[in-house]
């Protein structure tokens, strides 16, 4: 038995020490416990950090991250598109890339309609994974406040924290914000798999997969949109990114990723019309910005790996083959055929056709 005051002192000391120990682990060993998607983001950050970017930069959302495989392209390309990526993440990636000694020769942007009109996992991915750093985050929060757009101020699951405090806590990797991952990741059990994923992410130059089912008829976000009204903060960063690239005279191609047909059938005409009008407005404002291909292309459901309209590996390989042809033409200053089709033939036939300069139907 000890006195109650000694008991409380020991209790507090043990709580503080344990908390501090977890904090050190959280801050120093994110690969050991963070979500399996983290290594892919880290690979992109590392490529950005070392300015190992090549001629073409791809920015955008998860569909672009999945569908464009730089390893299958002739032109050296880096895929910096991220899961849940929106205009903010695209801007952040481009801004850092432009700080490198050699700027990319072309930027490919791909953001689906949903990512302009509603928030995604900004805090849970972009901030949590450190892709949007402290300075960028401060800028985003100030901008959102100024524009009166609360969409990025609130996380997906409201934790009751004021955004500025949350930003500071993420900046210091406050352990509560990561503890769920520590528990689910078995403290260190994800280390080996995450290290392998990091190597794979670097080897694939940023491409990674989400769902890999042999087909999906799940209806993606576009199927549920009633209107297309871009969020003020996303529009602001989209504009800022294009202005920044225009100032450096870097051509920008906007290419929309395919939807599965189950989703396409549910898209309201007004949504497609307003989305296209929005993009065309920017094409009219910035001479370096071109929309290549349809704004809502569709592919058969069998090429999709999940209900978020991510292509499965077979679908992504086909898409990358077609994209390669499009990109080569664009790099040579030609319009090229960028309405990328899937073809009824085998993947080998598609790739052979592409080598011969024939876009898959």
């Amino acid at each position, binding site marked *: *038995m*000890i*006195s*109650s*005051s*000694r*008991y*409380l002192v*020991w*209790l*507090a*000391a*043990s*709580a*503080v*020490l*344990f*908390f501090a120990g*977890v904090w050190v682990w959280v801050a120093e060993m994110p690969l050991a416990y963070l*979500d*399996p*998607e983290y290594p892919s983001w880290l690979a992109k950050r590392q490529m950005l950090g070392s300015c190992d970017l090549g001629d073409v930069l791809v920015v955008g959302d998860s569909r672009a991250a999945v569908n464009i495989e730089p390893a299958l392209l002739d032109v050296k390309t880096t895929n910096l598109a991220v*899961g*849940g990526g929106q205009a903010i993440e695209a801007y952040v990636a481009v801004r850092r890339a432009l700080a490198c000694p050699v700027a990319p020769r072309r930027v490919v942007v791909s953001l689906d309609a949903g990512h302009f009109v509603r928030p995604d*996992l900004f*805090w*849970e*991915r972009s901030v*949590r994974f450190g892709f949007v750093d402290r300075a960028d985050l401060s800028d985003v929060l100030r901008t959102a406040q100024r524009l009166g757009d609360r969409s990025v101020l609130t*996380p*997906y*699951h*409201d*934790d*009751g*924290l004021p955004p500025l405090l949350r930003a500071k806590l993420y900046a210091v990797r406050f*352990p*509560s*914000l*990561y*503890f*769920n*991952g*520590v*528990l*689910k990741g078995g403290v260190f059990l994800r280390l080996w798999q995450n290290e392998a994923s990091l190597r794979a992410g670097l080897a694939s130059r940023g491409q990674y997969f*989400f*769902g*890999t089912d042999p087909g999906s008829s799940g209806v993606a976000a576009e199927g549920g949109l009633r209107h297309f009204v871009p969020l003020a903060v996303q529009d602001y960063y989209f504009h800022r990114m294009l202005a920044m690239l225009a100032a450096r005279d870097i051509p920008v191609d906007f290419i929309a990723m395919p939807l599965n047909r189950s989703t396409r059938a549910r898209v309201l005409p007004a949504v497609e019309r307003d989305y296209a009008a929005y993009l065309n407005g920017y094409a009219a404002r910035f001479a370096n910005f071109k929309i290549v291909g349809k704004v809502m292309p569709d592919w058969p459901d069998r090429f999709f790996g*999940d209900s*978020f309209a991510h292509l499965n590996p077979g679908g992504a390989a086909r898409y990358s083959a077609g994209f390669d042809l499009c990109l080569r033409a664009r790099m040579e200053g030609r319009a090229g055929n960028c309405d990328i089709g899937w073809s009824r033939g085998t993947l080998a036939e598609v790739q052979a056709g592409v080598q011969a300069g024939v876009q898959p139907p």
Partner: protein
Amino acid sequence: MSGARASGLPGPDGVLFNSYVFIFAFLPAALAGFFVLGRFGRRAALVWLTGASLVFYGWWNPAFLPLLGVSVLGNFAVSRLLLATLERPRLQGWLLGGAVALNLAALVHYKYLAAMLGFMRLHGVVDLAFADPALPLGISFFTFTQIGYLADCRGAAPVVRRGSGWLDYALFVTFFPHLIAGPVLHHREIMPQFAKPGNFRPIGANIAVGLGFFTLGLLKKCLLADPTGVVVAPGFAHAAALPLFASWQVALSYSLQLYFDFSGYSDMAVGLARMFNLRFPVNFNSPYKARSVIEYWQRWHITLTRYLTQYLFNPMAMALLRRRAARGLPIGRAAQATAGGFAVTLALPLCVTMGLAGIWHGAGWTFLVFGLLHGVYLSVNHAWRIAAPASARPGAVFGVGLTYLAVLAGAVIFRAPDLSTAFDLLTGMVGMHGMGWAIPADGKGQGRLLLDIVWLGLLYAIVWGAPNTQEILGEAQSRASAMRWRLSLPWALGFGVAAAVGLLSIGGTGEFLYFQF
């Protein structure tokens, strides 16, 4: 029955016990102010604690503070009138009736009116539009607490302690650990504690025990209840498509989520009160260990059961017995020996009480059916108790299993958004939607199945195999002496780590299953 949905726990904007704002700002300030002002006298400390409780309440939605204030002051004024009219029972009756009606009117306005009018509109009875008002946090709790107090003020020999002023009363009603979700306190067990001078200085042992309760409650809530609930929402959303095993997984997960959520909340409330040197009654005593439904209600939300028994069941049963006695019919055991007597003296008041208890949780047919189902359970249980010979009583394992299954069916109805969904899930549980494990849209791959089974097994091991919080903390008898807390270094270190884990678990950003792995 309680839990987030039932008890009306605040939404994410509210000051929850398991929030940083509460733990790192509100609670230390409330404790420090209470004990510092306690050095200058009880009144200053009580004013501080009442003020802090109002801040706690107003944090969620300050717009409801006037309602709480009017309710407290109005009921206190009526209680003084009741005590001043002891010699005029008829007037007392009118006063009490009027006050109860006003309290219930406020409750009906905020909680039931929109649903009632909606139902009547649906059936063409009325054509009134009424927007569903925001529900003031804890209105059921502070309304029922005060009605009980008023009832005790009535009569020739009121059980209310004379000399309790408005401040004691206001704190009794608004004291933040019980204000929003119970326990339902009785004035006799709380208000005398406000008068003890020793309660206004910090007592290390009480803070240690209070921290123990709070920590274990926090762990139950954050580490056990919340993760278990992940499958519940998608499961109930797709109840009609759930095959056998998936239906069971959803139902079992919900019953465990509810158990640990409410148990955790109750522990935290008890622990918080203890830090202020106040003892709350036990509200949760391993209910899934109950061998009968009667015992279940003596273990689950104990203070609500006590309240309902004292202020609803007993008066009703007594009135029925008096009527039977006036007609020359047998009462007591003799009455219960006949089917008619049993139905009138026991089953009827039980079903009415439990039906009302059901809709106390919210406006909806599911709540009513849940309550009535438990009324039937209790009636059957009592009939068995009366009629069956002692040798026919089931063994402990059978009793616990049967009771749990009965409670589980009730929990499904309680959680379901409507009766049709409840029916879908229950029919799924008897295999009418085929076999299988798949829960649509829960985001989990089949690879997680084994993990889910192990997790449920672990939770049941805790539920049925581990001592409960009051047993661990020495507030109740327990055979597991090794698990009994004491003021020792190992326990200090252990609770320190547990507290740190609890703090780390608060508000942690969840992982999102958008990424399939």
